[in-house]
């Protein structure tokens, strides 16, 4: 029996828009993931620390405030510094296509915009994480 996929759903920065993060967290839970939600107003340091402590397979960052080009790279850098390079960094929010491409080039995973079905996010995390790959074997 494969272990459950563990995902940290995180709200970074000052952005209080948590409707999407909560809907996605609920959908992941219903899909059988173990979901840890950080709550609002987390710094990149707090998020990466939680990712290490909770031994997650993926960090899903929700940003609707326009600060994604600062916060995603900062979280990614800190993840590399902590040596958790096998953890997927993904997320979503109000993020223009060019910025999604630029972040992907830095090593961030797929990012999801408004209107994405939650099943697409769940399927992606299954396909792109270590635990998901083990389960598929």
């Amino acid at each position, binding site marked *: 029996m494969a272990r459950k996929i563990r995902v940290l*759903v995180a709200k970074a*920065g*000052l*952005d*209080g*828009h*948590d*409707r999407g*993060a*909560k*809907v996605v*967290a*609920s*959908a992941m*839970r*219903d899909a059988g993931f173990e*979901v840890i*939600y*950080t*709550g*609002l*107003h987390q*710094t990149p340091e707090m998020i990466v620390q939680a990712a290490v402590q909770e031994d997650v397979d993926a960090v899903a960052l929700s940003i609707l*405030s*326009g*600060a994604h*080009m*600062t*916060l995603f790279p*900062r979280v990614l850098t800190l993840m590399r510094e902590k040596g958790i390079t096998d953890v997927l960094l993904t997320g979503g929010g*109000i993020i*223009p*296509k060019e910025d999604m491409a630029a972040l992907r080039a830095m090593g961030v995973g797929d990012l999801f*915009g*408004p*209107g994405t*079905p*939650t*099943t697409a996010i769940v399927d992606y995390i299954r396909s792109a994480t270590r635990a998901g790959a083990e389960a598929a074997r």
Partner: protein
Amino acid sequence: MANAARTETEAQRVKREAQGPAAGKPGAAENESSTAPPQLFETLSGIPVKALYTSEDVKPGLAERLGEPGKFPFTRGLHTEMYRARLWTMRQFAGFGSAEHTNQRFHYLLAQGMTGLSTAFDMPTLMGYDPDHAMSLGEVGREGVAISSLEDMEILFRGIPLDQVTTSMTINAPAVVLLAMYVAVAEKQGIPPEKLGGTVQADMLKEFIAQKEWICPPRPSVKICVDMIEWCAQHMPKWNSISISGYHIREAGATAVQELAFTIADGIGYVEECRKRGMDVDEFAPRLSFFWDVHNDFFEEIAKFRAGRRIWAKLMRDRFGAKNPKSWMLRTHAQTAGVSLTAQQPLNNVARVAIQALAAVLGGTQSLHTNSMDETLALPTEEAATVALRTQQIIAYETGVTNVVDPFAGSYFLEALTDRMEEEATAYIRRIDEMGGIIQAVERGYPQKEIADSAYRFQMQVEQGQRTIVGVNRFGGDEEISIPVLKIDPDIERRQIERVRAVRARRDAARWEKTIAALRDACMSDRNLVPYVLDAVRAYATLGEISDVFREAYGVYREPAVF
């Protein structure tokens, strides 16, 4: 979701109670919809809708429930002639980058025929941080304009005589600081506070419920809101000291009924807090204002505006004993639903916004913001913002809907729906009263949980194809339509940091010290804080510094992380 079909949700329970003992079995609707074609014959709030309405559907006593326009209970509108006498205020929310940028946008919008200003602030400003605080990293000037000290505010309103415009400021946790800065800028223009017209949102209850921008815990936050209501009642007779907002509650996922109920429950909360302070209800109630969302469900939205006015009028007259008819009036701003707009096929949003705006007008709004088609992608470009304003002008000047007051009155369907929304919202309000009032309910997380459940239910309905979103889960095209997106200069953060540091270095340090100390002292008492904040902003204390005084005095709020 799996257990939603088996057990009755709180929303269904409230709905059943509102309908009395004759209502159907709980859960029956779910069973029907699972075998029915992928179309829900119900409103966005889950109110079942029949194919045909007749006089049988309208309960006796309609004339009394409607009243006349401009008279209690204001179901038909606040004014006898409504838009024949005066159109609604076209108030487009604007703000990005630096104070200079937003000042230019204001001048542009005024030149295009806009009749009221509306200011959007950036996240650090909304949360009470200066731009050089660690939490502000990457956020300065992104979602709105950065205002850190009186100097920024002076630039923001440069060349705009504040006695000739009305200004709405969407700010909550540090609202008292922005209100004080506005008064101080007017002072410098030689305009006394009693001549200033406009609105400060300053509704902290809905922050804890939905928008989640706060500094201190609920009770001191509400205390500061009540300070503003009290001070404005004494000094700013043309100013709306609060905008009790359903908008954010709806955007966070509430249904129209929940938006109506939780917003009015918030209103009751503020009225009760003011009365505890010994204020007479007619002293402040005429300056309370409201703010509704306008979503896609056309008739439900019109019914919501009408039901809201009726519920409020009855509450104010009968529960709170208000004597002044102005205290009975639910005056409202409205904004089309940002959450209804799609990133897919963004041009379709122009149609959504037009339909929503029409509902707000038919519902009798006093002022309106129409969203721009590109808001799911970034802040609006100038072109998109202009189309949004033109949409209002087309409704106002081309469609003829402004010629007749409350034209849908007497429609069997609309009247039945208005009554039903009033009943369901009233059932929620009763439940909140039983919990000891809205502050207790918020501390228990009750409205928060209700909203999150509704948001999830809606998303599942969309994913299962029961609800259609054009261009998203039906009628999607393969080719990507791209539209231009506004870019914010990343250098704004650096310049804003330099400016606030220059202000701190240049100001009269002794005067600053004295005003901050006086504010700190006042926070430890029951005194009204507005005069102390006003002195501090005149001394160029920054928004972050004043917010820090609140943090020290009252503590910082942390929400329990539940989903």
